[in-house]
Structures are given as C-alpha cells and as structure tokens.
C-alpha cells in the first residue's frame, strides 16, 4: 500500500527527497495527428512541425514534435506516485525552475518519463513540492526533456 503523508508534514515529505528516479510511467506514442492538433491550438505551425514533405529534407529527416507538446503530455505519461499526499485542498501548478529540450521527438516515437522529488518547502499558501521529471524516447539513454515541476498543495478551504 502507498504511504500516506499529510501535505503539511514537511519533515516526513522531505524524507522522500531522492537522488534516484522512481519507476517509469506509461508509454505514449507521439503521432503527427497530435502535433497537428497542438499546432492548430497554439499557433505553433512552423514547417519543422507540420510540413511533412519539407521536414523530410530538413535537419531531422522528418517532422518533430513541438517541445511544449511533450511538456503538455505530462498527464498521459504521469509517473507513479511514491507516496500519497493527503489532507490538502486545491493543487496548483505553480511553474518550474528549469526546462531543457535535449533531443527531438519524431512522430512514431514512443516516450515515457520517470521522476524524483527534489524539494519540499513550507510556503505562505501551503506546501511547495518540486519534482524533476525526465522524459525519454523508450530505450534512448539521452533524455528528450528534463524539467522541474513545482506544485503547491493548499490547505483545505
């Protein structure tokens, strides 16, 4: 059974900070249809993403996914929780203290992620937890995306 830790028990949460990554999350194939829909929604219609013919002769030999598409796919490749946070109210996506796009992702690539807890601090609005999330193409040593994700656990209303 997953360990439960109260959102305001900062010392117990801090004990979960690790150097090692947890297990891989689910795999997801990135398709040209996803890239096209993301382009329509966000206006990022650079040829390197959506013009398949031109991109085949381009620097990557095919189209590549928008970097922010990979980031937005977080919920689909969400890594398993090492513990369950309880007792909190709203969860707020607070932002990030670092994001790097390291390797391109092409349509047909299958990606997955693993993560580790890197920081927990008490905050005026609750508890601030920071994870490092690393996205790889399956079986590639070099990650495609590395980013920090900061989540604020607010007290119950």
């Amino acid at each position, binding site marked *: 059974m997953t360990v439960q830790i109260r959102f305001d028990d900062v010392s117990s949460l801090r004990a979960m900070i690790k150097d090692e990554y947890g297990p891989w999350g689910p795999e997801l194939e990135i398709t040209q249809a996803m890239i096209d829909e993301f382009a329509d*929604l966000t206006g990022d219609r650079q040829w390197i993403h959506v013009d398949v013919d031109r991109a085949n002769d381009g620097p990557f030999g095919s189209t590549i996914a928008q970097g922010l598409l990979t980031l937005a796919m977080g919920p689909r490749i969400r890594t398993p929780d090492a513990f369950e946070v309880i007792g909190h109210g709203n969860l707020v996506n607070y932002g990030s203290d670092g994001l790097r796009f390291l390797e391109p992702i092409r349509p047909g690539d299958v990606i997955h992620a693993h993560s580790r807890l890197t920081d927990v601090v008490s905050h005026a609005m609750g508890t601030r937890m920071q994870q490092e999330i690393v996205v790889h193409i399956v079986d590639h040593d070099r990650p495609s995306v590395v980013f920090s994700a900061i989540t604020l656990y607010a007290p119950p209303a």
Partner: protein
Amino acid sequence: MRSLRFDDLDHLRGEITDEFGPWGPEVTVTQEMINRFADLTGDHQWIHVDVERARSGPFGGAIAHGFFVLALIARMYPPLSFDIVGESSRVNYGAESYRFLAPVPSGSTLHARSRLIDVREHAQGTILVQEHVAHILGNERPSLVYKGMLLHRP
C-alpha cells in the same frame, strides 16, 4: 527595424533591457479550445472542463490549463525591437523558469510583451533568454511569467 547578427554578442547584449516592448497580438481562450487541449493532453480535471461544477469552484468558472497558457505564447508572440539575421535555424532550448501567477478563466483575452534579459554564448550558437509576460487584458498581475531560451544556430 535594425538587424543584428546572431553571433554579434556585444550588440545583442546592448539590447538587454528592463523595459518591456510593445504588446503582441491578443488571443481569446475559449472553452472549446480548453476542451480540445484537455482531449489532446489527457488533463480532464473538472476545474478545466466541467463548466457547471467549476462555476461554484474557487475561480467562479472553468480555467485554462497552465501548460495551455504557456503554449499560447506561440500565438501571442510579442515583437522584438530588432531582427536577428545570419542564423540557419532557431531551436526552442527550454526555459530558465516559468510561473503561473493568476488563473485564466475561459473567455479571457490574453496578450503578452517581452524583453531580452540575457545573451549567452553556446557551443552550438547563441542563446537569447527572453522574459515573456502574459496578462489578461486590463489585469495588472500577469497570468504567466516565462523566461524562455532560444538557441540561434550558425
């Protein structure tokens, strides 16, 4: 508009400024767009897609996903005060940081402005770090502050 070479670090550094440039194009975030983003990314939390329930929630209505607001920077992209020339390509290198500071309810109209905050030499070219701030029209507090990095390659 002035043109600066991507590898002319001295002149590029001369463009680093505390002042934001002009506002870029306005973008209205509709519930239909939020729903499509939810379908694409699998983030169907009620605060984004359940309009009825969200009406009695903390923001009085459904709000856009933070990552959607971030991605909309491509649509709101505010103009730089100079052209960059001489590069072969530009690559989204990542971000120093981003913060979601105020919710964006569906139906809001956003716009953004930018300033150059750093210029870095890199083994593969030059990295320009720009701070983009996106506000709902008329809101003093930004919804998003995004310090994005573009790599300009020879």
